[in-house]
């Protein structure tokens, strides 16, 4: 049993090490975990709101934008970014370098609309005239009628395509699409282009809005038989209102001719796709496909999930920034941690004698595992160690050591009850295990809930807490307990050597019912001898009282250690 647990621990450790080494050799992992903004610095991106005619973004709009951008950045991993306003701009500080994808993720407004297609055509704004030359369509004559001749019956009604709109459509150049921040009429038709400029559309009014989305995820598209097509898509989930709207629209479009049966998905004034409606979507879970990669589909899903920004932004500047705390603080933290560990070592050795070595060895094992996991997570999941995280790891020493302390104290309790060492280790483990699971469960719960719900620094904290707690349980299960099982078989410990920390005499072991008898005879310390004699005496009284109770009509008494 003990051997198997230790083997498992060894296998786990080696596997983690192999993953890390593999990551270093084949990818961009490194031995040192990445550091957060406060310790390493990063990139500061200043975003300027796109607002025309000199007006200013309101404070409310800015605050809302800060909140949404923070969620978007957080969704890319545990990065502990900082987002705040500065004057009328929004400042995003992220650790490390900001790549193109990150910038897009931050600045895009991500205003999503679903509009029915009225007219689809070539993207060019030129035609080949009678002279055989390519000439641009003229700028629309403002005198052309721009109100429909008949009131449109529904959003797909072609009467909305007035001569003025038709002329504007022809003259529209997809090489100069409408910018993201421009507000287009929601209740009337608009002109828009496919994102890659391949098709030009006239679209009907907005039928379903992105604000009705409750969740968005990315994933591979699957065929009806469940096989994946290898194409990335964003899966949406609508609230009940959006679901109803979606069902109504798709059932109407389903019966129309092409291109009017197409339902355009418009993101920031560009059509990302305009699929034909082949079936009524009644479950409120449409899928958006387009030319997505895994990354871009994840970005869009995150953007849609947290909602559109009230205003769009452009990156005004993007600069390297230094750490706010500087490397000296990290060194102080590490130094203080080491000193603390030495103090803990001295204290546990005093308290538990050689058993304290098991505590220290367990802490070392936990330390190695924590380091490996953090190094791997910082490579794979963007985990970054902040100073608060370092402090959290140092506090984890206390949490972790407590598992051993609870366990050792239970073993001692069993020894006090007069058990032999091997059986005390097992009995103590059975009791300690429950306590350890229950109490660590509380910590894992805290970590999970805060990780899912909180943002920013709190998320990072929850992550550290969760990782250290899980490692703590693994170590006590696969290392500390098996080590004690093995040690209990050695003469040094089983004979209860005074230095073992498990000396039954010093622990005042006493005769208890049918359990093995260990006489509290010669004890090195007078105090201990006195206490165990007294304990024996007391027990006699207790037993006498039990006998009395039985005499007064109770049933058979229970043995405490049975």
């Amino acid at each position, binding site marked *: 049993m003990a051997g198997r647990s230790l083997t498992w621990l060894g296998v786990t450790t080696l596997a983690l090490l192999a993953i890390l080494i593999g990551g270093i050799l084949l990818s961009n992992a490194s031995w040192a975990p990445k550091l957060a903004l406060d310790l390493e610095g990063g990139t500061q991106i200043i975003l300027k709101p796109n607002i025309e005619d000199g007006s200013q973004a309101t404070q409310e709009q800015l605050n809302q934008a800060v909140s949404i951008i923070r969620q978007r950045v957080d969704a890319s991993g545990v990065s502990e970014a900082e987002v705040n*306003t500065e004057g009328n701009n929004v400042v995003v500080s992220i650790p490390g370098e900001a790549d193109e994808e990150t910038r897009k993720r931050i600045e895009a407004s991500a205003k999503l609309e679903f509009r029915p297609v009225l007219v689809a055509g070539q993207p060019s704004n030129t035609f080949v005239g009678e002279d055989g030359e390519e000439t641009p369509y003229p700028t629309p004559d403002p005198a052309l009628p721009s109100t429909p001749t008949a009131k449109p019956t529904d959003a797909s009604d072609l009467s909305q395509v007035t001569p003025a709109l038709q002329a504007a459509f022809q003259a529209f150049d997809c090489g100069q699409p409408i910018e993201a921040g421009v507000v287009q009429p929601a209740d009337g038709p608009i002109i828009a282009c496919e994102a890659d400029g391949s098709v030009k559309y006239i679209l009907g009014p907005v039928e379903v809005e992105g604000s009705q989305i409750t969740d968005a995820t990315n994933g591979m598209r699957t065929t009806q038989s469940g096989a994946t097509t290898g194409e990335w898509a964003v899966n949406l989930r609508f609230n009940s209102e959006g679901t109803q709207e979606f069902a109504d629209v798709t059932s109407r479009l389903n019966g129309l001719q092409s291109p009017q049966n197409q339902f355009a998905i418009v993101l920031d004034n560009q059509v990302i796709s305009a699929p034909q409606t082949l079936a009524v979507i009644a479950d409120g879970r449409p899928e958006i496909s387009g030319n997505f990669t895994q990354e871009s589909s994840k970005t869009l899903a995150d953007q849609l999930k947290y909602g559109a920004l009230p205003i769009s932004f452009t990156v005004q500047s993007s600069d390297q920034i230094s750490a706010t705390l500087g490397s000296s603080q990290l060194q102080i933290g590490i130094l203080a941690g080491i000193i603390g560990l030495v103090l803990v070592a001295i204290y546990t050795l005093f308290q538990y004698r050689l058993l304290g070595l098991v505590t220290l060895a367990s802490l070392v094992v936990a330390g190695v595992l924590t380091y490996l996991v953090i190094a791997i997570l910082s490579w794979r999941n963007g985990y970054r160690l902040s100073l608060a995280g370092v402090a959290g790891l140092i506090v984890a020493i206390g949490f972790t050591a407590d598992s051993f302390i609870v366990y050792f104290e239970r073993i001692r309790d069993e020894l006090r009850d007069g058990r032999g060492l091997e059986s005390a280790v097992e009995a103590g483990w059975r009791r300690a295990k429950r*306590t350890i699971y229950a109490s660590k469960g509380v910590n894992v*719960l805290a970590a999970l809930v805060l990780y899912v719900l909180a943002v920013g620094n709190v998320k990072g904290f929850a992550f550290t807490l969760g990782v250290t707690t899980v490692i703590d349980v693994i170590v006590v299960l696969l290392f500390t307990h098996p080590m004690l099982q093995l040690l209990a078989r050695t003469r040094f410990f089983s004979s209860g050597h005074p230095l073992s920390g498990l000396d039954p005499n010093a622990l005042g072991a006493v005769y208890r019912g049918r359990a093995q008898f260990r006489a509290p005879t010669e004890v090195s310390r007078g105090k201990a001898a006195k206490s165990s004699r007294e304990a024996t005496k007391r027990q006699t009284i207790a037993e006498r009282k039990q006998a009395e109770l039985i005499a007064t009509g109770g049933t058979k008494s229970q043995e405490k250690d049975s």
Partner: protein
Amino acid sequence: MASLTTFGNDLYTGKRSINFVANRRVWFSVAIALVLFSILVPIVKGGFNLSFEFTGGSQFTISPVASADQDKATDAVAGVVPEAVAKVTTVGNDSVRVQTNQLTNAETDDVTEALATAFDVDTSAVTTSFIGASWGQDVTRQALTGLVIFLALAFLIMALYFRTWKMSAAAMIALLDVLIITLGVYSLSGFEISPAAIIGFLTILGYSLYDTVVVFDKIRENTSEDGENSTRTFAESVNLAVNQTLVRSINTSVVAALPVASILLIGDFVLGAETLRDISLSLFVGILVATYSTIFVAAPLYALFRQNEPEIRKRDARILEARKRSVEPDIAPAI
């Protein structure tokens, strides 16, 4: 230290016992006094001292500078507004950004002067602006939502695990006690409440519940093993459990507090590292208070909550009756 082992032996057998439960009036009075004191401190001091991450503040950008020495900026700000905590960052190659709490117009002008002198540039090279909170209302709201849901779930899970909601209730009250006292001491210290300190408080909430669960599990063990013929009243069983886990409680809090204490001492008094100081103070105080609160508040409170249940009351009465008739008026743990 060997004496702690002996002490542990005596506590385990019941030879020596501290009356955490029976003397609860004393302990509760102490706890209430501590809580009142902890509530009074911030009131007297006029609220908590929140850092600019929560409130927003002033930002100075000095550009261009010849050398981006962060200490120069820190000293310059400290020279004008000694109580302000300045966060200094170099941006790009040639500019320095200084963020502080919201300053008055006069202070802003003075700091601008001081920074210009320190970096040997014209005051026109120093621009000022107002920065919003990076830890805004929305972050606080999300964190609080998470916390409330966590506490509700913890309450439920503990109630299921221990098969009584009274343990959950006692644990939550003890938790509140820890939080209030830790905040009180923190306020007394005059340190700013920074995001790091908040992380410290969250850790303490986790630690406090954790510590209570460990002790309560021993109480559960003892009280559920008390059959019909137990010689201990319910309150005595609870008290015995607390005594039996006392050595563990002491050892654990010492082991947890030692590294934190070393960060606090080195971080604050020796080298003046602010983030370390904030987080380690809240942790150090919190660990000690959490251990205290489990023993002196949670356990006696639990005994109080349950002692009037008809079954427990009946059994306690029977045990006391039997004890009176016995020859020795013993067993009741004294000291």
